[in-house]
């Protein structure tokens, strides 16, 4: 520590050497003097780090000090920061963590709690990502021209992931978890302000607003999750729905459709339906078809199958769902959807089996509670 004089770097360097040691010693055997070996390795690493010290210090400072308040002078910096945090050269889980940390002002502890991982594990994830930003020289800039659409897609994916994580666990009484859904909405609003007139940013914003408008009905008095078919629609926030629809209209006027606008349009069909039964399912299926044309994902096909069951019956829908077994065999909602369709077809034993499999694969506490309830526990 003495020779380095910079605790953070020293700490990192020592951790690095230990990691190297743990990786190498099983292969190469423990050196004659492990203490000296560690110091030599640590010093070599320190030289590496200090050489980049200025660049490192600058970048870390930028990542650390970014404030949450809306100072227009900082706006450009924040937009650059968002794009740097969501760079596709970083693992997506690290992109989410970095964005929460650097742009939304979360502490490492809060991010760890939000994703139900230990604080040291989350700290490690963040440190690794920051290190890659510096070592690989990931630029601190807003991509332009032909580069922008793909990079913006990565940013929107991070924001949507963040939103879903919070939205799913809303109301589960997980006191330690900060509400990621609100933060994701805030970040998307911020992005829309910093990078105006992007139809897909507005599409995602509309999608989030329409989901949040229904959130009061998503949990009953006992705190149990209530799915869309059983929700008390009088508890939906009509004003928020109207705002979501306006946002979607603004996006649609730009005539640049995309997957988030389509998903928002599906949410809008639900928001405008007086009941589950009277939902315009034909319209929902049509929108899912359009969505599949822009992104052929098995998860989208799964959701489309649910809508299809209302148009062409559970048997047809189950056939479509079964076709996805290979792609979605490890996804809890694949099994949960099968269970619902099997129930509808009167196959109670098979439904229970599918629901058990869903429970095995499901991590989210609110969804687990729902599955357990349906299993009769």
């Amino acid at each position, binding site marked *: 520590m003495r020779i380095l004089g910079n605790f953070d770097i020293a700490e990192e360097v020592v951790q690095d050497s230990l990691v190297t040691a743990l990786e190498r010693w099983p292969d*190469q055997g423990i050196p004659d003097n492990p203490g000296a070996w560690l110091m030599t390795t640590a010093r070599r690493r320190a030289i590496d780090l200090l050489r980049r010290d200025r660049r490192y210090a600058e970048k870390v400072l930028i990542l650390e000090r970014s404030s949450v308040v809306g100072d227009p002078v900082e706006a450009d910096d924040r937009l650059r920061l968002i794009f740097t945090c969501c760079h596709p050269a970083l693992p997506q889980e690290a992109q989410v963590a970095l964005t929460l940390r650097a742009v939304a002002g979360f502490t490492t502890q809060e991010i760890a709690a939000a994703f139900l991982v230990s604080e040291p594990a989350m700290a490690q994830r963040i440190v690794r990502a920051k290190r890659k930003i510096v*070592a690989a020289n990931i630029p601190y800039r807003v991509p332009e021209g032909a580069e922008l659409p793909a990079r913006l897609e990565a940013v929107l994916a991070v924001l949507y992931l963040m939103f879903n994580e919070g939205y799913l666990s809303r109301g589960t009484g997980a006191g330690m978890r900060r509400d990621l859904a609100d933060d994701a909405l805030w970040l998307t609003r911020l992005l829309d302000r910093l990078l105006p007139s992007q139809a897909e940013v507005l599409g995602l914003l509309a999608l989030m607003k329409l989901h949040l408008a229904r959130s009061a009905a998503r949990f009953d008095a006992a705190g149990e999750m209530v799915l869309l078919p059983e929700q008390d629609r009088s508890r939906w926030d009509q004003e928020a729905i109207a705002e979501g629809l306006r946002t979607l209209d603004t996006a649609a006027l730009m005539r640049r459709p995309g997957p988030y606008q389509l998903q928002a349009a599906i949410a809008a069909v639900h928001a405008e339906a007086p009941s589950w039964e009277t939902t315009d399912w034909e319209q929902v299926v049509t929108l899912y078809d359009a969505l599949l044309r822009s992104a052929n994902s098995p998860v989208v096909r799964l959701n489309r199958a649910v809508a299809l069951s209302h148009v062409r019956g559970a048997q047809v829908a189950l056939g479509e769902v079964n076709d996805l077994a290979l792609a979605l065999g490890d996804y809890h909602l694949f099994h949960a959807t099968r269970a619902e369709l099997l129930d509808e077809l009167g196959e109670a034993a098979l439904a229970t089996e599918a629901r058990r499999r869903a429970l095995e694969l499901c991590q989210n506490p609110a969804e687990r509670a729902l599955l357990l309830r349906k299993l009769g526990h």
Partner: protein
Amino acid sequence: MKYVLLFGGTMEGADQLEGAAKEQTMADYEKSGQWFEKYSKSGKIVGGHELQGPSTATTVSRRNGKVTVTDGPFIESKEVIGGYAEIEVADLDEALAMAKEWPGTVEIRPVVDHSQDQERARS
């Protein structure tokens, strides 16, 4: 900032290919030649080579102080490194833009800069 681009795949076995597969391979090979020419002219490529196939590789390894020489590449995988280019560009995005024009898989690695080691050691 210097990076090394490691290219996946070699021309080894290409002469045994037939039909569409052969045409595709030859077209990609030509594209990679054009890529090298373009970026060498613009000064982005500061070094690099196409490598002969993995059947020509020899690996020297060290285990518990014992040195062994074996036939074949040291990375055991289906992918083989077929060549590399050393490039000098502003940042990772510029390296990515170049890599995206390559007709195949590319791994981008920033190089360790040892140019200031001695200076640092003195101060």
